[in-house]
């Protein structure tokens, strides 16, 4: 039977842009152009490599997000995923990680899966906990924060590089994995891939389709609340000197003045 892989991807404001909050203290998705979260490209790449190593596999890219989030799906399809699922609903605005993980869990079950692949974190929320929560909700093993991953004989194996040790992990499928930016450069979509993506199926789902009440998600359904957000004041301009042969000594003088030496 075909190996069913679902890659969870997020559409985020470009991290190199000037990101802000909206009046309701949710992430402003208007002022800065959105794109597929860079860290999710690694997830798509590893899914493609696992698929290429398998006899038979099918990759679905899945996102929860507003209409524009379809761009993230299209990028995944251009890279080589087979089909896409887009969960979109006005009631999802302001959903936190608990709500998003609930929607993803329901959607993943709706699609049918042997392996769920996620990035290590989003580039906007940057929590990095969604894959663990998803595994908890689905009741399947979490094999997360991997810098190398492989699937064979109904098992997923991978290397998790922690602060204290590097661990070799193993779990039976079905499972949820997340991969880091050390897992291998993501491929660029080819022209052929971009053209082919236009013909690939995208299924649209809303909360009703997944049997989720609006109260469980959205800003009002969030289990956390942002009270306020303030722009960090710019750092006061420092002293810049040009090295004329004494730059290191001048710098040492500054550090001594600040009592670092």
């Amino acid at each position, binding site marked *: 039977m075909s190996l069913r892989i679902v890659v969870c991807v997020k559409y985020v404001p470009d*991290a*190199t842009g000037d*990101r802000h909050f909206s009046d309701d203290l949710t992430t402003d998705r208007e002022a800065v152009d959105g794109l597929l979260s860079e860290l999710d490209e690694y997830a798509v790449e590893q899914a493609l490599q696992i698929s290429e190593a398998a006899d038979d596999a099918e990759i679905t890219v899945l996102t929860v997000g507003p209409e524009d989030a379809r761009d993230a799906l299209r990028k995944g399809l251009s890279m080589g995923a087979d089909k896409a699922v887009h969960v979109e609903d006005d009631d999802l605005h302001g959903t936190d990680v608990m709500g998003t*993980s609930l929607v993803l869990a329901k959607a993943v079950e709706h699609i049918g899966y042997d392996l769920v692949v996620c990035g290590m974190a989003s*580039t906007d929320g*940057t*929590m990095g*906990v969604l894959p663990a*929560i998803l595994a*908890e909700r689905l*009741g*399947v*093993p*979490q094999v*997360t924060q991997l*810098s190398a991953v492989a699937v064979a004989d109904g098992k997923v*194996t991978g290397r*998790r590089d*922690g*602060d*204290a*040790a*590097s*661990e*070799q*992990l*193993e*779990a039976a499928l079905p*499972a949820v994995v997340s991969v880091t930016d050390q897992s291998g450069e993501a491929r660029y979509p080819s022209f052929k891939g971009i053209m082919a993506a236009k013909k690939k199926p995208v299924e649209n789902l809303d909360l009703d389709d997944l049997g989720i009440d609006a109260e469980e998600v959205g800003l009002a359904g969030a*289990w956390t*609340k*942002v*009270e*306020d*957000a*303030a*722009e*960090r004041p*710019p*750092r006061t301009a*420092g*002293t*810049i*000197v*040009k*090295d004329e*042969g*004494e*730059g*290191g*000594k*001048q*710098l*040492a003088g*500054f*550090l*001594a003045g*600040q009592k*670092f*030496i």
Partner: protein
Amino acid sequence: MTEVLVYVDHVDGAVRKPTLELLTLARRLGDPVAVHLGPGVETAAPVLAEHGATRVLTVDAAEFADYLVVPKVDALRAAYDAVQPAAVLLPSSVEGKEIGARLAVRIGSGIITDAVDVEAGDGGTAQGEASGGGPVTTQAVFAAAFTTRSRVSRGTPVITVKPNSAAPETAPVESAVEQLTVGFGESAAGTKVVGRTPRESTGRPELTEAAIVVSGGRGVNGAENFHIIEALADSLGAAVGASRAAVDAGWYPHSHQVGQTGKTVSPQLYIAAGISGAIQHRAGMQTSKTIVAVNKDNEAPIFDLVDYGVVGDLFEVVPQLTEEVKARKG
């Protein structure tokens, strides 16, 4: 009596500094109850008591080392049930965040990750009810361009806190060590740890805990040149960091990467050598107290952040600085 659970990060009983910071923050919310999983509680307990842990709940089991994350969630859940705390604090490590997140789902509570400060709410208690009286956390977001203050609005707040968020304070108490009973669930054995290679110690301070960090970037131009960065770090007793460009080029290990996909550091002094200061890097270091940089490009964005910058060749400036530091330190 209000109690706050603190998850202890330790290596065979040697308590890591972020846990002492957690105990210090926890005392603002109630009496800290430390949860020590695995071996070494006899080493850890006196340290935890010295930093204000009124109770130490402990259990050792092979499952903690043999399987990933979930056995620890089962144990923390048992501690939660036994204590009924007002809040749960964990270190913002990869594992700490994952344990906290899974616990939060199980107990129906919201989670806040990567807090850099935690204060008692206006109700003076840590109860995270919708009344708004729960603890208030501070986070640096959007590559530290914004500071947000947040609350958990449902259930018992689960909060993970970044290293260096508080200065550890001693507050000695008489502490009782109590045995925790844990029944591991079905999912505990889901992910097997089949091998473990400990990281080799460099003898330098831990990157996220160091008071001074010296980082090298693209300008270092090769693994063979990183000894220049290391020499400066050693003269200052500092940790060594690297930009993503340097790590991607294979010049320095990823465990030393400072930036969005690496470590976030907030030392007293950050020295950037040959680093342009792309957003990816700034996200990991711009909350440092004092920032200095050496870069040959006077238009490098890193100079927008610095307290002191030298426009020049790092191969000239950095060794001269190292010599001068050594000379001044005698």
